[in-house]
């Protein structure tokens, strides 16, 4: 991110930016950065909180007036952590033993995904161009047979993950984002399939499969699950 500040400012476009990882910004030294303490993936802080987001954007833009950089300004507001309700369980059981196939799980979630789309007015599914049953079939086939090329497989997996997490947001007792991610990795058949697929991708001779298996399939925070298998 900071590198773009250097490139653009040198070409005549003044830049300011948000920094999520202060240590990186301290190394890259872009012209102007507003350091925030928010979760990675949420540079403006709070979803569905326009006043909060506007304050962050304005604070970053106000730095354009300064020519005493490279500078890092600390943003004063934090985001409060979501309340954690221990004992939360997904109210409709989607545990691997409850469905006989990935396809059945995907099908069972369809009505909840419809509800999520109705509530939010949008979906972020749609990178792969596949419908969800086809994306599921691609992933299933990768585990059962020969591996498809890495790029369409990655796109199908990202779409499925978005579909699952969007659907879960519409469950009657949907819990927090963190709980739904825990549900995805510990209770869904898709999570199980991705964990099972990892060693197969990592062992492939194709370098793109290796990148997917080793870096871009299982989040760093979830890789401990691989060791338990």
């Amino acid at each position, binding site marked *: 991110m900071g590198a773009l500040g250097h*490139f653009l400012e040198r070409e005549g*476009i003044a830049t300011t930016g948000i920094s999520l990882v202060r240590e990186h910004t301290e190394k890259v030294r872009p*012209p102007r950065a507003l350091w925030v303490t928010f*979760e990675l993936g*949420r540079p*403006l802080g709070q979803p569905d909180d*326009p006043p909060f987001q506007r304050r962050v954007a304005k604070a970053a*833009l106000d730095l354009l007036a300064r020519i005493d950089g490279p500078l890092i300004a600390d943003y004063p507001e934090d985001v409060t952590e979501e309340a954690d309700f221990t004992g939360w369980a997904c109210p409709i059981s989607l545990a691997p033993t409850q469905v006989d196939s990935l396809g059945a799980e995907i099908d069972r979630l369809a009505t909840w995904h419809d509800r999520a789309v109705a509530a939010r007015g949008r979906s972020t599914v749609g*990178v792969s161009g596949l419908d969800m049953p086809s994306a599921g079939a691609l992933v299933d086939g990768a585990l059962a047979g020969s591996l498809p090329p890495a790029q369409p497989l990655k796109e199908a997996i990202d779409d499925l993950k978005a579909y699952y997490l969007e659907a879960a947001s519409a469950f009657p007792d949907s819990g927090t984002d963190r709980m739904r991610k825990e549900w995805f990795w510990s209770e869904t058949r898709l999570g199980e399939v991705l964990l099972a697929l990892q060693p197969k991708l990592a062992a492939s001779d194709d370098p793109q499969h290796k990148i997917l298996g080793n870096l871009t399939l299982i989040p760093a925070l979830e890789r401990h699950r691989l060791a338990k298998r």
Partner: protein
Amino acid sequence: MVKRLDDLPEVEANHLRRVECPTYDDTPLLGGKPLAERRVAIISTAGLHRRGDRPFRPGDGSYRVIPAETPARDLVMSHISVNFDRTGFQQDSNVVFPIDRLRELVADGAVGSMASVHYSFMGAFPPDAAKPHAQHLAGLLKADKVDAALLVPV
């Protein structure tokens, strides 16, 4: 709440410590007009694009074009990394791509105007791969009379 890398779970902190950061001998700094007279573009590195546009791939240093009138429902994310939250973006695209906030700042006079086109890179790019694209982008921004960019990571 993220404070410093040392405050993060060890496995996540180690992942971020391994990210290679480019260094520069000096940092250019441009003065210019007050914010209320500037024309601002958003440049995201979240791997955003319109549904149907070419998804990002590993090592991809190119950008995608997001016209200002693009509805939120047309935006998708194909960043290759799995080490950041996507549920915020699923809930509200402005938490990643604050175009409605910029529009509001223009409406209340805090910002002069908004670019007609915004852009997204995919942050996991090697800087050398992005440099020629960024230089080309500067020309496009100037053609749109943009004189300031808000860089938003993910």
